[in-house]
């Protein structure tokens, strides 16, 4: 992905500079700090439509916080504070976002860093006090089979007055592991940032490595097929999960059955249930034969049909509709302020889709509609997912139609400098940013869509009852591992 504009800015003016662009319609995609000698650099990646701007600002150990001007920058600056030890002055809420430990130095520093003398930062209590207000801590080991995360609800009776989400348990230091010589096996690591979005993460990483290389038409189409297969199975999982959480057992079983059939088809056609190992820098690993294509067609048609039937199960059950509608409302205003992306933003009326705004691989040659709803409740998010499955089926069929024979991989050379890999993952806009110097990855930043969507959930659950939290959580369908990297 080519950066259309790259500027440098004085740290004192950074907040104002970003704010000026923000008012002109630029959105913060990612924000991170990297070490340079001397001091450090704060990087801000902005996007407006198909334009991508990279702002760098050399700082020593502190700078005026962007959060003071733009609330959406809050979570990024919390990470900058704990991972790079740079103080965003005037931020106001610098509790750890993912690391939760403090030692001598900082975890992303170049050279040795000892975690042996670190101390754990205790998780703070909620600020809510009052008669009859009690606090419910949940996690990190949950009742279901999900990833680790800690939630603190403040409730008076049933309604939730306040929710604090504390993540970081799945922090594995992937950004640090990514550093080093550019090598094709980095993509194996990228696939394991969030296992259910393996294709999207691998694609973002591949886009960075490939630079300007022209990927063969056939490989680009297979990449779209892989991305859309992943989208279908993720969305099916969320919709089936909503049915499980509301005890609509028949629909839940049906949904998980449809998904299992799709995962089995993935294994038959692509050799892996979760599609790992298919994207390689410069193309794709496996070509599709005529037999594969016919299997693929029947698999996606069945999945598309299954999604429709699943939706009708939900719509025909008044108690289910009652449970889903008006639950967990995220207003359009909040969606914009938090900088939410993907399904969550689209269900709240914010139309944004990387596939049409910054077309990558073969998306530029294909036509599709962007699913959108206005209400921003659990039902709206389920409906957006259901519609997207239909669009994904259509995209896969378009790709398969008149797919020409040809090469599936090409040679590439990774250019030095800043680059971005931007992909619409099943969860939304996914950004990998890299600073490559002399063929070595100097700094690699991963911004999973979950990272910007998690804080929005704190607002969406407000005034809902505690038992509806799992439902709202599932409707967001966020990754813990992708957030914590």
């Amino acid at each position, binding site marked *: 992905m080519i950066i259309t504009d790259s500027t440098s800015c004085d740290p004192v003016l950074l907040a104002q500079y970003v704010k000026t662009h923000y008012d002109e319609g630029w959105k913060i995609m990612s924000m991170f700090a990297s070490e340079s000698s001397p001091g450090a650099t704060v990087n801000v990646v902005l996007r407006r439509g198909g334009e991508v701007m990279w702002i760098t600002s050399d700082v020593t150990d502190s700078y005026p916080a962007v959060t003071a001007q733009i609330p959406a920058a809050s979570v990024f600056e919390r990470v900058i504070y704990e991972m790079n030890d740079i103080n965003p002055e005037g931020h106001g809420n610098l509790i750890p976002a993912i*690391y*939760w*430990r403090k030692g001598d130095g900082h*975890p992303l520093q170049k050279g040795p860093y000892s*975690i042996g003398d670190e101390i*754990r930062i205790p998780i703070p209590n909620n600020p809510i006090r009052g008669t009859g207000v009690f606090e419910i801590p949940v996690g*990190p*080991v949950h*009742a*279901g*089979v*999900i*990833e*680790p995360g800690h939630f603190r609800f403040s409730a008076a009776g049933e309604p939730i007055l306040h929710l604090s989400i504390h993540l*970081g*348990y*799945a*922090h*594995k*230091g*992937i950004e*640090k*592991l990514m550093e080093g010589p550019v090598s*094709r*096996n980095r993509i*194996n*690591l990228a696939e*394991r*940032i*969030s*296992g*259910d979005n*393996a294709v999207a993460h691998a694609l973002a990483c591949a886009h960075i490595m490939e630079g300007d290389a022209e990927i063969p038409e056939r490989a680009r189409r297979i990449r779209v097929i892989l991305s859309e297969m992943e989208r279908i199975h993720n969305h099916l*999982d969320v919709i089936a999960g909503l049915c499980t959480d509301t005890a609509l057992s028949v629909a839940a*079983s049906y949904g*998980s*059955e449809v*998904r*299992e059939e799709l*995962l*089995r088809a993935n*294994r038959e056609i692509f050799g892996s*249930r*979760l599609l*790992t*190992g298919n994207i390689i820098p410069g193309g794709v*690993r496996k070509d599709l034969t005529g037999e594969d294509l016919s299997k693929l067609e029947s698999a996606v048609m069945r999945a598309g049909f299954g999604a429709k039937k699943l939706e009708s199960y939900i719509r025909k059950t008044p108690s289910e509709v009652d449970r889903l509608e008006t639950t967990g409302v995220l207003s359009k205003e909040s969606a914009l302020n938090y900088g939410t992306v993907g399904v969550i933003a689209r269900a709240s009326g914010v139309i944004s889709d990387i596939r049409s705004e910054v077309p990558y691989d073969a998306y530029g040659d294909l036509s599709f509609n962007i699913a959108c709803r206005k209400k921003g409740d659990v039902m709206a998010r389920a409906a957006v997912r259901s519609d997207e499955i239909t669009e994904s089926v259509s995209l896969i069929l378009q790709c398969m139609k008149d797919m020409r024979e040809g090469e599936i991989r090409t040679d590439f050379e990774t250019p030095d400098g800043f680059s971005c890999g931007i992909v619409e993952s099943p969860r939304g806009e996914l950004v990998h940013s890299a600073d490559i110097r002399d063929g070595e990855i100097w700094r690699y930043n991963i911004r999973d869509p979950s990272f910007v969507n998690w804080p929005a959930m704190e607002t969406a659950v407000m005034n809902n009852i505690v038992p509806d939290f799992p439902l709202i959580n599932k409707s967001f369908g966020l*990754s*813990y*591992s992708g957030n*914590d990297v």
Partner: protein
Amino acid sequence: MIRKSLSNLVSSKRPAESLEKMGSRPLMMPFISGECDSCGECVGICPTRAISLSDGWTIDLGKCIFCMDCIDSCPGSSISKVPAPLYALIREDLIFSGSKPPKESEGTVDADKVKALGSSMAIRELDTGSCNACEVEVNCMSNPYYDMGRFGIKIVASPRHADMLLVTGPMTNNMSRAALETFDATPSPKAVVAMGTCAISGGIFAEGDVLGKGIKDTMAVDLFIPGCPPPPERFCWRY
């Protein structure tokens, strides 16, 4: 897999079901099949350093993430896919070389422990920072295709109700304390199963912000299940 290694947990009167009927395909692992001239291409490409040449061509299945890059990289095409074993009771049983080729898993967990656990199995899944692919597959075990409930295997909400901890993930530093508390909260006798490459050896995250190399460094493991992620039918299969 659980069925086989923790045998006799479920009444033998229940109908048998073969792996084939569950739609299983064997998990394939890379293994040397032809002549190896020790060029070292596969060692260099392997993202988890699972392959070594110091004592002949050796692969550690506990480290392998099944990316198959070694097969692509081999100039003599000497590496091919062979069926991987289902499980191992000790870590060393996952290391294979020319003189010790992969074979069908055998043996069961300590008989006293199996007897004490009784006739059904309550599992607490413990995620110590996995990439969530293992969770996807554990969730799939409950879908109508596998439906592990019919074998008496169920996922329970609390470690206090569990006979077995099914541990995924590389044991991150942030999660280690909660994981150990979960381990302590599980009543004895308990079985601990390390599921997936991360839990066995740390896998691709072994050099990251994790505690030890796999969960065996923090808790006693009874069973290792290789795979990245291991397919679901390997858990609920009985024969």
